[in-house]
């Protein structure tokens, strides 16, 4: 089960897990895109379903858990990928508003907790399960800009650790992945914002901001891809990682080393 599985990183994760043989439930707020990705998954592994889900809505999450069991059986793996960087229009504001703080926490943190809660019973009952949470390198260290987003992703790492300790006795592992710089619709907005509020990027278009961040901050000197993240998710949910839990792994070309 992949939240935010219709597009971007979530879609790459869904396709990768399908490639390894998994049936995939695509939970997304965008029904049309979810159906499209589900069709791609069916072409690969034969089985997929979708459920229109707003992770901030507990009733919708309960519906999702139920729909997963009905369509595909109990979930073996839960990938909490859905995330936002602010409330509508955040990228054109120079300062975070209260709405930005609320929206990032609602989706990135409370939404993750909602989804995890409704899938817990399926996993604890079977005494097995894998949960992978998508955080961000923004959660590894404070930054002068986008404090609300960084703080929400730091909370994701902390939530991952708490959940790992809570569920370890049920043989359920919980790990986080911190993606680095990926050219996604979200980063296009980040680039927009940086061009507005950081003099170093003045006059640049979002892609130029992105490229100059890579040149300055990524030791490997290249951007990361949804495929990179998907490969790491596939590792964490595999038997190879059965004794790894409570970890956050940066997939970031060396941006932050821990």
């Amino acid at each position, binding site marked *: 089960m992949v939240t935010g599985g219709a597009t971007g990183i979530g879609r790459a994760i869904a396709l990768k897990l399908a490639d390894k043989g998994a049936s995939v439930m695509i939970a997304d707020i965008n029904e049309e895109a979810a159906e499209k990705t589900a069709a791609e998954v069916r072409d690969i592994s034969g089985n997929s379903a979708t459920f229109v889900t707003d992770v901030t809505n507990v009733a919708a999450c309960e519906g999702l858990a139920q729909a997963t069991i009905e369509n595909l059986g109990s979930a073996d793996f839960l990938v909490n990928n859905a995330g936002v960087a602010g409330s509508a229009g955040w990228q054109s504001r120079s300062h975070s508003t209260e709405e930005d703080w609320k929206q990032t926490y609602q989706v990135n943190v409370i939404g993750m907790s909602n989804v995890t809660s409704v899938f817990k019973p399926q996993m604890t009952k079977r005494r097995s399960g894998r949960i992978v949470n998508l955080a961000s390198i923004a959660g590894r260290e404070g930054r002068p800009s986008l404090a609300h987003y960084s703080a929400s992703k730091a909370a994701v790492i902390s939530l991952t*650790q708490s959940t790992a300790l809570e569920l370890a006795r049920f043989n359920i592992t919980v790990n986080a992945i911190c993606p680095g710089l990926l050219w996604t619709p979200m980063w296009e907005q980040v680039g927009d914002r940086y061009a507005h509020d950081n003099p170093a990027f003045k006059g640049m278009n979002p892609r130029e901001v992105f490229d100059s961040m890579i040149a300055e901050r990524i030791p490997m000197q290249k951007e990361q891809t949804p495929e990179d993240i998907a490969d790491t998710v596939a590792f964490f949910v595999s038997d190879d990682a059965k*004794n790894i839990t409570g970890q*956050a792994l940066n997939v970031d070309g060396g941006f932050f080393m*821990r």
Partner: protein
Amino acid sequence: MDFEGKTAVVTGGARGIGRGIALELAQRGSNVVIADMDGDAARDVVAEIKAGGTQSYFCETDVTQQWSTDDMVEVAIEEFGQLDVLVNNAGVGGAPGFTTRKVPTVEDWQATFDVNVFGIVNATQSVESYMVERGYGKIVNIASIAGRGGRPGFATYGASKAAAINVSQAWAYKLAPHGVNVNTVCPGLIWTPLWESIGEWRSSTDQQSSGLTPRQIFQRTVAESVPLGREQTVEDVGKAVAFLASDRARSITGQALNVDGGIRQN
């Protein structure tokens, strides 16, 4: 398979975790050079790998000597035509006889740093120009969760493993623009010859552990400290190394991954 046609060198590959790593890489298609001081144990691993269908070769290696790791790299390239993966696994808990000493001596500190830190530096220095020139290489260093935070009792080992993590980061930065990834695995509680000697050491120096066998001390430690409630295995470490050394981890560098059942979060 991730390592079809590739060559790996595993230092300390004759026993314990190193042997587990060597066998795991071999199972995934790699030819493996076993770099170790213990020829008899190494030859057994070589035979086991060959029986599995890939090639293997023993190279007598003392990682504390630069000339010896130079030789190790040369031999690997000569034998198999290329070197793709270096796993710096060789490690010690102190100078010979450390299990009987309550307080580590200067020799214990020296031996621990000679092997656990300078061993990584030597082998990495031996291979880096080759990997940079080729624009491809994977280095995985074996540290320990003991390197994640200081603890009383085994400060020598913990400090050396913290240094190993730091050294990995330094080379990760240096080699990142050249297509070479450097990462670290931090094993948790694994029943190996090294842990057996740690158990002996606790049994002879720690009142709470006297009268217990090393294995009993190990099991008690697992029960007390592992959230997942079970010991980790050499296979677990082998599989984490295999991931980090594969192209699936192409965008991961400078990271240390705990394989410890949740003992320490990172």
